[in-house]
Structures are given as C-alpha cells and as structure tokens.
C-alpha cells in the first residue's frame, strides 16, 4: 500500500486552475522528486500533501486513511510529516530552540527533546551554532537548520521544496551532502520539489514531471531523461534537438523521417504518415571533418553557425537543413580546429533518437 496517494486532485486559486487531476502514489521509504519549471504547481501540491491547504476537489490518502475527510484529526497526521519550505523562515530565537520547538509542540519529555535536538544538530553539522540567534544565519545555514528542525521529530515523510534554490554552489553541495546522509541513514520517505533536473536525477528513485499543474510523466530518472513522454517534458529535461517531421518509410521498426527535406533514420513503432518529433541529445552526436564510414545510420553535412564555450565542453550549432545542437569537449573542438562557417559532418545512431508523436 502506498504511503501517500492522491486521487484526481484539483486546485484552483481565484478561478485559475493550478493543479489538474493529479494522481500520484508514493511508497514508504521512497525518494520521489517532483520536477517542473517555476510556477508549475509543485509547491501547491506539496502544501496539499502536507495538509497545509485543502484541495478544491479530489482525495488524499495517507497511510491508507482518507485525510481529506473532515472527521480525520489532521494535526495528528501532519505531525507524522515535515516540510522544509523553499525559503525557510526561522523563529527569532537561537538555533537550538528553533529545532526543539517542534518537539515541544508534541509534548515530548525534556530529556527526549534534548537528545533529539542534539542528534538533529549533529546530522546537519550545526552543533557549534546551537546558541546563535537563528535570524543571523546565512541562507545555507538557515536551510540546514530548517532541515534539522523538520527531521528532529522523526517524521515518516519529509517534504523538501527546492532545497537548494537561491543558494551558492558551496552551500548547495553542503545541503546535498546532508540529504545524502539522511537518505543513507534514515528510512524517511522524501518528496522533493526541484527545478534542477540533475538534482532530481541524483537523489530520486522516481520522478514526476509537473507542468502547468499536470503530471505529464512519472518514471525512473533514466526513463524521464532518455524517453521523455512529450515535447514539453523533452524541452524541460534538456533535450536540445527536437526535430519535427513525418514518417515516410518503415522497414520493420526502422523508420525514415522527413525533416525539412532531409531524412533521419530512427527506431519507432509509429507507422508511415505519422507526424512525430525526433529527440536527440546533443552529447549523442559526433562531429568529423570528413564523411567517415561507420555503423551510425545518420550522417549530415552542414556548416557551423555558432560556438559557445561551456566550461570543459563546447556547444556547437550546425545548420544541416535543420539546426542541430552538438556538445563536444573543448579539446576535440580544438583538435578539429572548428570555427564558425566551417563544414562538418554530424553523425548519430538511429538508436540514439527517441521518437514521440507530435
């Protein structure tokens, strides 16, 4: 049985639909990431799951109990969960009391409060800060206090809303270390909203893609990133080459797609005449100066139109009847002496293309 289950959840703010028919099942001890752009409804969904707001319609089950039922003691249910907001607010008191307050509200014994608070402080590496006024902490430190505060009571579910948004890289990596430790040491179910796909990919066992209030796809990080269900998800997860075309020929499952008069070969179950999008990750494409003989089914010549350096990598745009974005290492770009206007051959395998219906 799922620990959290939503059935046809809708939410409206002033007549505007912010969540549309959300159906999710989250199992105990699972790490589930909700990814989606800002404004997709991630925070609203988490607030509903944490019983901070009621959905407009639909049902929410926690541990098999319908908690949308007004007869249920929502406080008792809420006390089994914890929520770290995107911009956590700390109370105007010291770090220790900030962490201990949730335990005091649960009327725990003072010895237990002391032990649990100290454990939580230790978990996030903030023991030496315990007497500091929490209002004087930096963003990253505040976030760590918020996580410790949420975990101190030993919740069954931890909701994290954009845990590293607005943090500098050093603070981000510290928070991620803390998260890794929590995942390793505790059996807490974690539901994490993030717009950082790579973060979702690193932590989550499953990912739900939420866009415009709708869950567009749920799957393992591998599935979402290699086989996005539609164009929006593909764009969001960073597939840069999305080529629209029509299947003009099919031989078993090898199809030929007409894209602006050039033909791409890919593997697909769709039939001839189907309008499709071909998704190609830029790192799946290789560049060469001559047309090599290879097993790859697709080779197109074109001219380089743009070059952007990207740390150790270089993003190159090639016009070969359609724009194609390629990512190669800086060293390769130097070896091939690539410059704007130079003619190159772009090669990719038929199996590197993911086909979705238009």
């Amino acid at each position, binding site marked *: 049985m799922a620990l959290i289950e939503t059935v046809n959840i809708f939410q409206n703010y002033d007549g505007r639909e912010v969540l549309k028919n959300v159906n999710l099942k989250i199992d105990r001890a699972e790490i589930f990431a909700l990814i989606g752009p800002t404004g997709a409804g991630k925070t609203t969904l988490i607030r509903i799951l944490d019983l*901070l707001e009621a959905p407009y319609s639909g049902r929410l089950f926690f541990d098999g109990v319908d908690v949308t039922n007004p007869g249920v003691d929502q*406080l008792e249910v809420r*006390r089994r969960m914890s*929520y770290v*907001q995107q911009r956590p607010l700390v*109370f105007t008191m010291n770090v220790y009391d900030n962490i201990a307050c*949730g335990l005091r*509200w649960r009327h725990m014994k003072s010895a237990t409060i002391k032990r649990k608070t100290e454990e939580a402080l230790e978990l996030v590496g903030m023991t030496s800060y315990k007497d500091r006024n929490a209002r004087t902490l930096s963003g990253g430190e505040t976030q760590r206090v918020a996580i410790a*505060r*949420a975990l101190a009571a030993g919740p069954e579910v931890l909701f994290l809303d954009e845990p590293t948004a607005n943090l500098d890289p050093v603070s981000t990596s510290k928070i991620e270390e803390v998260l890794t430790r929590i995942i390793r040491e505790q059996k807490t179910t974690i539901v994490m909203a993030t717009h950082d796909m790579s973060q979702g990919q690193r932590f989550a066992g499953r990912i739900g893609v939420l866009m415009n209030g709708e869950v567009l796809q749920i799957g393992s990080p591998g599935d979402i990133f290699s086989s996005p269900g539609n164009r929006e998800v593909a764009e969001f997860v960073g597939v840069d080459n999305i080529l629209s075309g029509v299947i003009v020929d099919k031989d078993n499952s090898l199809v030929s797609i007409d894209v602006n008069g050039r033909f791409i070969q890919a593997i697909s179950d769709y039939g001839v005449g189907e309008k499709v999008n071909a998704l190609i990750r830029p790192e799946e494409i290789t560049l060469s100066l001559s047309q090599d003989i290879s097993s790859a089914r697709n080779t197109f010549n074109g001219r380089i139109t743009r070059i952007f350096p990207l740390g150790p990598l270089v993003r190159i745009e090639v016009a070969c009847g359609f724009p194609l974005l390629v990512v190669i290492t800086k060293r390769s770009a130097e070896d091939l002496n690539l410059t704007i206007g130079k003619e190159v051959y772009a090669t990719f395998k038929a199996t590197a293309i993911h086909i979705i219906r238009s």
Partner: protein
Amino acid sequence: MLTVLLGRSLVAFLATSQIGIEGGDLNEFVQGFVKAFQLIITLDPQVVDITWRTLAIALSSCIISTVLCLPLGSLIHFRRFPGKRILINIVQTFYSIPTVVVGLLVFILFSRIGPFGVFNLMFTPTIMVIGQVILVSPIVLGLVISALSGVDKGLFETASSLGASRVQAVFQVIREARYAILSAVTMGFGRAISEVGLALMVGGNIRGFTRVITTAISLETSKGDVELSIALGAILIFMALLVNIVLNRLQQK
C-alpha cells in the same frame, strides 16, 4: 546617602553661584530650578507620593489594557470577518481621542446619576485607572494588531508544518512579535502617564489620594508654586526619556 550628600553640595553650589545674575524674574526662575532639584534630591515626601501614585495608576491601566488587548488583538488579527479593515481603522482613529472626551464619557457613565453611579467611583484612583484603560486601549490594541501583522505570514504556516496546533502556532506568532508588542505597551504607558485632562476631570486632583504629576503641575503652577511644578515636570520628562530609551531599544530588536 552619598547621592543625597552630593546633591546637597551641588544645591549649595548652585545657590551661591547665582551672585552674577541680575533681575528679579530670572532670579526667581533659577531659584525655582534650584528648589526643584533640592526637592528631587532630598526625596521630598510630597514629590515621592505623587510620583509613586502616578506610576501606580499608569502601570495598572497599562497592564489591564494589555491583558484585554493582547487576546482581542490576536482574535482580530487571526480571524477573517467582514468589516475587519473598517474595525482596525476605527481603532486607529481612537489613537488621538482627546483625553477630556474620555473624561467626559467616564464622567457621564460614573457620576451619581450615570448608569454606573451606584459603584460610587468618582474621584478615586480606580476611576482614573478605568479612564486611562479606555484612553490607552485603542493604542495598545491597534499597535498589537500592527505588531502581529508585521510578522511574516509564512511563520504561522511554518509552525503548523512543524507540528504546531492552531493555538500553538498563534502563540508562536505572538512570541515572534514580542518586541513590537512590548513597544505598543510602552507607547500606551507613555500616553497614560502624560495625560492631564482625564485625571483632572474624574480624579479630582485630591491631595494624597488622586493627585498625580500632571494634575499637580497644573494646580501648583496656577497657584504660583513653580518649584514643585518644575520638580515634577523634570521627573515626568525623565520618565518620558526612560520610556523612549526602552522603546528605541525594543524597536531595534
């Protein structure tokens, strides 16, 4: 004891240093100051009595209005109801209600023929406290509501998400606003201690019973006894200064 001795020698010095000053009026004025200083330093029984009563009445009314306004302000802040904005505007309008108007109201209510005349409270410290509570409550209430509104809206929800019940979350928000609430109370105290119209109208300025600093100053000045007035005025200004220092400290927190 040392302070008193030091004070006395200072008085003696001031008394002898007036040789150079010419003109009767100015002389009287300086003498007034010297005498006033003497009254304070020597802890003149009349000055002490009036100061003590002033503090007791103002503090009582301040405490009572806080006890009334803190829950009421919380109720107004945390509940949603039609006309909430208008109610807050009305409360704020009463910040500057003239003290004599409150005096008139209390007089009508508590005079012999008034609805509460049976309690026979006119011209007692009790009626002064009642009047000051009416005078000060709008300020304390309005500022308590502002103090609570000043707390980030998300704080209530943060507390809820950490397992606080509704009541526990409300207390957390009040706790968060504690400095702003204390400064509201301090403002109320400042208004109570410095008003004169109400104390005069319903207290009656009875010596040793309802005479407070402001009413004493007004009476003594009209009688021409400026020394006592100056001494009491200085004490009042000193108290105002103290209130201001406290207020500043609180607002910085």
